[in-house]
């Protein structure tokens, strides 16, 4: 993904121009994030009051991730065997481009209707754009992601892609695509309009694509958390279902996967999500003579596309492998002082401080990912909020020394170096 032709000054300048003009200077971003932060804290308090034992989930979740990342290649292989045993098709993509090509092959000839669930991994590979360029009609079906698609933007939060939009802005965007004059102050009418609009797409879709929150290597089962019901339709109505998932989501057992998703939803501020799907293969029936026959009411084909894209290498890097522990619950972002004024403009494919590390090591590379590493205020509050206790600011500081050696620092850091060490020189 790294574009070696762009000079670092241009990369920094473009980033700063966007983060200031679209983020920091936007009053509506501050309002939307303030509302979201207040709602997040209120909901989290409610969830933790109802399920106080969740506080103890954190330690076990961290141990599961530590083990899983230390045994990543072994777990990938175990997952392959389980998926094939379940009559699914297993794919391992080394790069983002490879993942997109695999999915395009599965999808087949152009002009297919594809419904898609929210997935940061697919943002990393820019899958929707890739499939659209191949001539398919692709619809994001998560409401927040649908809004991202309408405004041709990118997700502004790991779980809430349109967290930077006010209800008024959302209504205006939806009105444009449905042709209705929606009231600006009523969230319910906006939600209803999208429901009506997308229903037809679900029914006629050829392929459904989603991500997953965890995969159990022993059974090859995907765990997908959702609230809207769009994944339920995406994963069951089309003939083909494809899951595009980063390899770091694999954990050893079904119980471990359940523990990880429980921790994810609780710290993503839910008492319990409306749906948690467990998908282990194509639909099947054994109702006639107990003979297992594939392709019942749900998809006839089930494909798991695991994406490496630098993750396996990162899992072997003791200074930075903690990056892969991130469950993408998005809790840290509600506490980040920079995110409060910028939303996901702090970051590129992945938002926030932890997102800066994902951008550098996975999605964008050192050079293109460098600017957001310098947006971190290194205040360490994300670590306190993170259920996995990920020490993002410590990794950011270490990464800055690597970036500086490569000449990717910001102008002011270079100036600071001149000033600081003048006396020594």
């Amino acid at each position, binding site marked *: 993904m790294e574009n070696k032709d762009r000079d670092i000054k241009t990369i920094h300048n473009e980033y700063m121009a966007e983060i*200031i003009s679209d983020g920091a200077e936007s009053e509506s971003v501050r309002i939307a994030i303030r509302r979201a932060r207040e709602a997040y804290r209120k909901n989290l308090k409610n969830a933790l009051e109802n399920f106080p034992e969740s506080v103890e989930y954190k330690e076990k979740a961290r141990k599961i991730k530590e083990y899983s990342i230390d045994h990543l290649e072994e777990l990938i292989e175990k997952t392959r065997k389980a998926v094939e045993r379940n009559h699914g098709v297993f794919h391992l993509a080394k790069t983002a481009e490879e993942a997109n090509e695999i999915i395009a092959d599965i999808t087949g000839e152009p002009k297919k209707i594809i419904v898609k669930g929210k997935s940061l991994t697919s943002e990393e590979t820019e899958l929707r754009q890739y499939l659209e360029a191949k001539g398919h009609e692709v619809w994001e079906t998560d409401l927040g992601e649908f809004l991202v698609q309408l405004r041709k933007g990118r997700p502004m939060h790991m779980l809430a892609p349109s967290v930077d939009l006010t209800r008024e802005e959302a209504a205006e965007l939806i009105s444009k695509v449905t042709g209705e004059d929606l009231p600006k102050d009523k969230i319910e009418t906006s939600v209803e309009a999208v429901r009506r609009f997308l229903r037809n797409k679900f029914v006629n879709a050829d392929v459904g694509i989603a991500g997953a929150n965890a995969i159990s290597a022993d059974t090859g089962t995907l765990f997908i958390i959702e609230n809207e019901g769009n994944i339920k339709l995406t994963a069951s109505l089309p003939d083909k279902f494809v899951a595009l998932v980063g390899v770091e989501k694999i954990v050893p057992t079904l119980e471990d996967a359940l523990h990880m998703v429980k921790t994810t939803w609780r710290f993503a501020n839910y008492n319990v999500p409306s749906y948690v799907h467990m998908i282990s293969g194509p639909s099947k029936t054994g109702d006639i003579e107990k003979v297992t026959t594939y392709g019942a009411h749900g998809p006839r084909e089930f494909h798991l596309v695991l994406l490496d894209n630098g993750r396996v290498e990162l899992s072997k890097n003791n200074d930075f492998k903690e990056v892969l522990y991130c469950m993408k619950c998005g809790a840290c972002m509600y506490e980040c002082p*920079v995110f409060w004024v910028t939303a996901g403009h702090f970051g590129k494919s992945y938002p926030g401080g932890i997102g800066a590390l994902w951008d550098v090591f996975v999605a964008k590379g050192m050079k293109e990912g460098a600017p957001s590493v310098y947006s971190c205020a290194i205040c360490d*509050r994300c670590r306190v909020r993170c259920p996995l206790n990920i020490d993002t600011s410590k990794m950011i500081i270490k990464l800055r020394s690597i970036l*500086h050696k490569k000449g990717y620092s*910001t102008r002011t850091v270079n100036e600071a170096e001149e000033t600081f060490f003048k006396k020594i020189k």
Partner: protein
Amino acid sequence: MRVVLAGKVNLLHTNQTDVLESINSLLKKLDFEVVELDNEIVCGEASINLGLLDNIEKVFSEFKKNIYNLKADVVVSAYAAGVSKWKNDIPELLNMELGVPYIHLTQLIAEEFDKNKPDLKPFPHSYFVQHGCTLGRKMGQYNFIREILKLIPEIEVLEEQYPTAEIEGIDPAEFNSCPGSWLNFSQPELGDYVKENYVLEIVKPANPEYAGSTCANGHLGIRQGLEIAEIDDIKPLYFTQLLDGITEVK
């Protein structure tokens, strides 16, 4: 006790001379022999935080030599990062120890107040205190400032609260918001918005008359934020300024 004050250069560089003067004045009132460290080469902690590691061995060796030459009993600073770096990072990064205790001002003053119980005049005002990110979250030092402020008659101390802290068994200060001062070094254009937002979203709703951080860097963020947001009914007041104004000389 001979106290070497580190961080002077940075206080001057950031136009916080009022803070520097208050530290000197207060420590003298408390009978400390104060020696200012005049020849600091660089803000060493900033070098590490910005990833400028090439020269730090030289910088910290020089710092150590200066401290040794000044025959300090203790080194103190209004900045938390230096204390933290010598405690946590430098032994690991450079296998180097300072050889003299290096503590934050809040610790020195809290211990002194506890020992000698100075006479403090009432301060009938509300004071919002931010627990500096490094001193708090990275070093766990929340109580020195609380012990100090508790001794002040008539003060109303305000701290940022966090709704789940009690359920999670975490000191609410662990969740203190950050005024964004470190961005001064890396992306200052962005830093101004973060500082402004901090005072608008966190300090102003608490409705204090005065506000300050335990750390001089956090304090800089608060005073710059107040200035950018054009808030003039909340005055920035570093805790040594507060104490210097109410501590009676025995």
